[in-house]
């Protein structure tokens, strides 16, 4: 959904964008069920566009509902990430405190 936020893509170009970003490795065909579901839920809109390089391409772009959902999910993810980071930091801090106390005692 992030890849479709600012520009429209067709299936193959979306796969290229996702794989070139290097963060996601996936079977190329699996994007189509996801796109179909997003389309069915009204989160993306699609249209066939003729291509001079071969068969027509089906382009997808986020709808306003899709953008809203993506924004909301991004916020949720940020919250989750910050929570996880806090949990990771907490034991480190408590460990440092213990060390300091130990130094003081010594």
């Amino acid at each position, binding site marked *: 959904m992030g890849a479709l936020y600012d520009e429209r893509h067709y299936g193959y170009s979306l796969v290229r964008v996702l794989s070139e970003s290097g963060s*996601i490795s996936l079977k*190329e065909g699996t994007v189509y069920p996801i796109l179909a579901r997003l389309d069915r839920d009204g989160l993306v809109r699609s249209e066939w566009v003729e291509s001079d390089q071969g*068969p027509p391409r*089906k382009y997808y772009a986020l709808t306003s509902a899709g953008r809203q959902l993506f924004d909301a999910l991004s916020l949720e993810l940020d919250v989750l990430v910050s929570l996880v980071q806090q949990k990771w930091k907490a034991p480190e801090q408590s460990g440092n405190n213990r060390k300091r106390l130990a130094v003081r005692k010594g």
Partner: protein
Amino acid sequence: MRFEKGKAMNPYPEVVAKIAGDYMERVKSQLRLVSTQEQGDFLREIESHLYEAYQQMPGEDDVARILAVLRNFGEPAEVVSDRLPGALVRSGTKRNLPLYVAGGILIALFGLPLGSAGAGVLVGLLAAVAGLLVAYYAVAGSFLLVGAVTMLMGFLRILLPQVFERLVTLGYIQFNGPVGEFLDNFSPAYQGLLLILFASVFAAAGWGMLRMGNHLLRGLRFLFSLTFDWMRRLGQGARRRLRREPRDEPRLSRVSYVKQ
């Protein structure tokens, strides 16, 4: 631009077209329960992807290139998973087996007998309508036959009165009762004309019935197709209800995240 076997317009080398065509057939076979329009749309999209991926795939060996494309694309079952009715793709998910068993018992006890009765009534009605149609055409045919025979007799009475008389004597032609008494009031020529007149009325009635029968046939064909279509939809609806699963969030389980 389809990956169809043996099509001259196919832009791929023959062996590549065959491999890709086989793959598309496998995808298509997985989409049997999807509507034709959605099926066509989806297949076009995959074809477009395969075409472009094939063009972009480096290498000299065409077969190796298309195989690499298909390997990267994934198995047909994975690709079509979200296009299928829920029941076909929830392998591995929890199934409410006791609920299914209870549903099966209820259907066996109540649904099937009631359904059979309903189907029986429906079949009876359709058979009655078909019987009426047959009877209608039988009457139309009789009218035409009577018209033709009577007309033949009329012409015979006018043109060959001796032959007509001979046939009456032999008993092949019989005019008894009021019809015979009525005809006896006229000369042979008038009798022939009257017979031709009667014959024309019968023939016209038979011909008219046949003409109207076309409309009747069309109407009944519509009625039959409507009924069968309704039964098919009813069956599909029931099957869909039985197989329906609750919708959940988009499944991303097949997407694996690579550690950076």
